[in-house]
């Protein structure tokens, strides 16, 4: 083929394009096989969630392809009517949104102070923050559980939010400080000469210019908090548990309630998947920022 592929396919239409796509040789076939392998388990869960519990316990989800009639949205309608599950879904939102907002706000404030306000011991404090990046969350669970017990935060959504906020901060400060230091210092100097205070510089210059990093951080923190189970497992009770814990507790009778499990798991995945695909660009750039800096 001498002509550029794009021109040829434009003439050949959709069918031609598909042929072209698969005609690229072994490489593409391998890529397709791997992609399918990566996707099949998720598709399996999705199709299971669209089958009745009787079907799910007597045959595999792949029978859908030979008997499409068994598909039903009954599981989802049951789930939406299940007060406990929907409550846990709301809890997840109640935990995730404040924990994300708090980390972004507090992290941005501190990131700015580390980047542009001179104060004694700044470098040492930054070293402490970087060391704290290494602290596994597990280390904090027992003392904080005791502390929450003493001050009455145990079992509350607030306790979980505060914990996630504290653990999100080292990464937030690290990421935002690195980004903020790249903002040209002359801009800040000019603003200072014009009589702008720190707060004004922060809100008028740093925040608008730092928006890409803030967006990346928000997505990260959102996904981490939404997908967390360990923290919630320890600090919440039956009324404040998020959806991950609710699903995990259903697992004890795996097989008996595959319908609830599959639909619930899939429902809990939809929000992060939508966030992920909508903001994929920021997500990838955040990964790269975190890795090359």
């Amino acid at each position, binding site marked *: 083929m001498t002509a550029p*592929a794009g021109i040829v396919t434009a003439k050949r239409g959709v069918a031609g394009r598909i042929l072209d796509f698969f005609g690229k040789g072994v490489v593409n076939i*391998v*890529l397709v096989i*791997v*992609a399918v392998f*990566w996707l*099949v*388990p*998720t598709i*399996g*869960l999705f199709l299971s969630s669209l089958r009745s519990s009787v079907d799910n316990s*007597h*045959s*595999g*989800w*792949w029978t859908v392809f030979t008997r499409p009639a068994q598909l039903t949205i009954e599981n989802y309608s049951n789930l939406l009517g299940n007060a406990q599950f929907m409550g846990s879904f709301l809890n997840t939102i109640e935990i995730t949104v404040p924990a994300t907002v708090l980390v972004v706000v507090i992290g941005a*404030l*501190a990131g*700015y102070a580390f980047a542009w*306000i001179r104060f004694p011991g700044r470098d040492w404090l930054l070293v402490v*923050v970087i060391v*704290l990046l*290494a*602290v*596994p969350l*597990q*280390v904090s669970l*027992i*003392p*904080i559980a005791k*502390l929450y017990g*003493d001050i009455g935060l145990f079992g509350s959504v607030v306790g979980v939010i505060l914990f996630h906020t*504290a*653990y999100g*901060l080292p990464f937030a*400060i690290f990421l935002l400080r690195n980004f903020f230091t790249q903002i040209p210092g002359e801009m800040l100097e000019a603003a200072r000469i014009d009589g702008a205070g*720190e707060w004004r510089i*922060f809100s008028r210059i740093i925040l608008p210019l730092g928006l890409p990093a803030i967006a990346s951080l928000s997505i990260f923190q959102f*996904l981490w908090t*939404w*997908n967390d*189970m*360990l923290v919630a497992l*320890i600090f919440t009770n039956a009324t404040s548990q998020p959806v*991950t814990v609710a*699903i995990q507790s259903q*697992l004890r009778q795996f097989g008996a309630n*595959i319908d609830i499990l*599959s639909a619930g*798991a899939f429902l*809990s*995945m939809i929000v992060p*998947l939508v*966030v992920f*695909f909508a903001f*994929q660009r920021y997500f*990838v750039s955040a*990964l790269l920022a975190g890795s*090359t*800096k």
Partner: protein
Amino acid sequence: MSDFLGWIATLPAWLQIILVIVAFLAVIGFLLFFIEIAPRTGRRYTVIRLAVCVLVPLLAMLFLGSVFWAALIAAVLGGGFFLLDYRSRQGAGYLFQLVGFLAPAVILLAIGLVYPTIGTTIQAFQDNRSRDFVGFDNFIWIFTQPYGIRVVVNTIVWVLIVPTLSTIFGLAYAAFIDKSRGEKIFKALVFMPMAISFVGASIIWKFVYDAKPVGDAQIGLLNQIVVWFGGEPVYWLQNSPWNTFFLIVVLIWIQTGFAMVILSAAIKGVPAEQLEAAELDGTNAWQRFMNVTVPGIRSSLIVVLTTISIASLKVFDIVRTMTAGTNETSVIANEMYTQWKGFETGRSAAFAVVLFLLVMPIIIYNARQIKKQREIR
């Protein structure tokens, strides 16, 4: 405070009056101390300040019987002195702003991370009620019991296999997909598990691994494939030691996408001239890949390997959701939770400390690599 007032109300009237006056004077004295004495410079005042910083928290600990309150008071006192000191030098506005920007983060980090890390380390050397010190007993318990050793070994197996395989798969995929058609879609498909929670991923794979007795219809895809090929269904998650490997597959499934995205970006950053020069020298694709591309993306490889290593060390959700650590699949993070649930706080804390000690060298190595890289630039 209300307890204090309630307690006062039970005393005779004359004692009440005296106590209230004493309390009043104490508060006034405290305020005076802060306004008048604290900001003064000079050696004597520095000594007074230091003494107050140590004595008041100690008194608080004696009377309130709580380390937490003592720490809080010490932090407030120390912070107060620091502020007053700088107020005199830099002007009120500067200080107010600095505190406004930093205080929320510092307070949350101190209470959420610094205090608990110290607390856990202390608890690791105490008995299960956190009362008496027992030396290294908890650690000895972990490393002398077959079960405890198994837990540590499992964790090490996770850390050895997951980063290696995820990185190899991710690198291979990134290299093959580079500049091919539909690159974005393929990348998104492999990257997608990153957005799914570990719990969600575990449920997905529990469906794949599900096993039914011989003769019954299988509902797990893997066993169905085995049966289609004429085999007998296997209980994937029950037979040690292979069950750990089937759990590891789940984390590889999640982390490969991460490795792929980072490495793909790094591969695009390898200068085309170098590859062309190598091609002119008559090297084949494999030689070019091993001798030009891989050294070119070395720093990204290190980041990917260390990041995935840390994730594998901390793995909890997958083990908890799929086997809860039964059939010899437990790992440190899961055992920490199990021991805590069983009211063995000492052992639980010891597991946490072991985890911290295992994570630490990886982070230090990573930080040093990043620093080295910066120096080169």
